[in-house]
């Protein structure tokens, strides 16, 4: 009997493939997300776009707000804890959250260490900008990886950069000789055994999703075509003019990401997307993707 084994944790990540995980701030939004076909919701008090505007310290959400959402929807509910804040993660595990996102969207609690995720029974998802970061998180026990992008920007450019970075490095590893892998592991700062595994598999050993800046059905399709297996949409839905129809359109765009006619159909007549930010407008010290190591 094994509850909470690594395989069982990765198992839930497998079930989320080909879907859309949506940020929601209350039960009403969670219901809209579920009705639109979301495979899971991420419960948080403020979506990244608002965290950016409000400033201050962003922490784990009030458990009562998360429980309210858990009671409303039947799909998995995820929630965020601060990087390195294992006490927040323990609280999220106690309310039986389905997935914990150790997230750069919240203000980091530890500037040197991430959570040792193997000691938890619930699975974790972590962000990455490159393959080395992804493998360090998997080494610590992450059951799911998402490329970071730039949360709350409504701008896909960073998500594309990070996904291309991960995929191109994976391709390089598959072509390397065995005697080159140790040097590659050293360069990336990644555990050697995982570097070997990626070199053999030609992919990450856990599912690889995309996040941070997805605002349109075309953005979702782009990330899927670049190798994402599911997308997280944060501010992109509930900062748009008509969240329900945009949510539904993005769900269809992920399933039919290779079908341009279908994408044309779901992209047509949608009300305005979130406004979004050029990355150069964001002061460097406010880039969320720089958090985590």
């Amino acid at each position, binding site marked *: 009997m094994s509850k909470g084994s690594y395989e069982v944790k990765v*198992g839930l990540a*497998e079930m989320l*493939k080909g879907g859309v995980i949506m940020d929601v701030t209350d039960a009403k939004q969670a219901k809209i997300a579920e009705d639109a*076909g979301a*495979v899971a919701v991420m419960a948080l008090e403020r979506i990244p776009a608002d965290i950016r505007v409000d400033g201050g310290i962003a922490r784990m959400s009030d458990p009562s707000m998360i429980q309210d959402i858990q009671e409303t929807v*039947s*799909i998995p509910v995820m929630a965020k804890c601060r990087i390195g804040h294992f006490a927040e993660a323990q609280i999220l595990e106690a309310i039986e959250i389905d997935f914990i996102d150790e997230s750069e969207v919240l203000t980091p609690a530890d500037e040197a260490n991430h959570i040792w995720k193997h000691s938890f029974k619930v699975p974790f998802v972590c962000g990455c900008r490159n393959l080395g970061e992804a493998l360090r998180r998997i080494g610590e026990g992450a059951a799911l990886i998402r490329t970071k992008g730039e949360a709350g920007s409504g701008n896909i450019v960073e998500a594309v950069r990070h996904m291309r970075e991960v995929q191109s490095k994976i391709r390089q590893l598959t072509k390397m000789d065995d005697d080159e892998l140790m040097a590659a592991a050293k360069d990336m700062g990644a555990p050697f055994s995982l570097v070997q595994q990626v070199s053999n598999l030609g992919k990450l050993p856990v599912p690889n999703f995309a996040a941070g800046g997805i605002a349109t059905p075309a953005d979702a399709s782009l990330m899927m075509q670049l190798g994402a297996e599911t997308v997280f949409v944060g501010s992109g839905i509930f900062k748009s003019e008509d969240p329900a129809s945009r949510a539904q359109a993005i*769900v269809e765009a*992920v*399933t039919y990401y290779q079908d341009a006619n279908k994408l044309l159909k779901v992209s047509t007549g949608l009300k305005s997307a979130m406004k979004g930010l050029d990355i150069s407008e964001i002061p460097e010290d406010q880039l969320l993707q720089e958090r985590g190591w």
Partner: protein
Amino acid sequence: MKIGILALQGDFDKHRLILEQLDLEPSLVRYPSDLNHVSGLIIPGGESTTMTKLMTRGGFYKYITSFANTNPVLGTCAGLIMMSSQAKDKRIKTLGLLDLDVERNACGRQIHSICVPLNVNINGKSQPTEATFIRAPKIVRCGPNVNVLATFNGSPCAVQSGLHLGLSFHPELNGVTIFHEFAFKKSVALKEERIHAA
């Protein structure tokens, strides 16, 4: 032999790997017309609310039920929910391929997900296997023509009726091939025998 895997959402890629191990040719099904080219169908694990939306929007219901009249269908977890008579949840529209009722997420949230050893009765023979239950549904009523192949915690978790096989767990996560083999290789043999006999 080409087997379709409903690829609207879920762990369809894991099923692809199992089919390849059995020398069956996997084919992803994203449109009802894709069913014209396959001789069996897998409805994978995933979220049954999402599958209901996408199957409704894609107009799948009548095509899958008519396909299932003469072809084998295997459903795992959410796939079992979709194959059931009812899920007692108005968010879910089921196909009614198996005469049974299910309760979604009856085993609890992810923290209660589990991998256990299990004995399964296939072809009158008891075989040990491994079963991974992820936020699993529970079968709460079984019709008289439904054969129970295995139980877990006192409830049926593997059932078969005619050409249709439903599992509340995920053999595809453990690399277990016996259920796919039973659903598609054995049932085909059975179907051919029947045609032969007629």
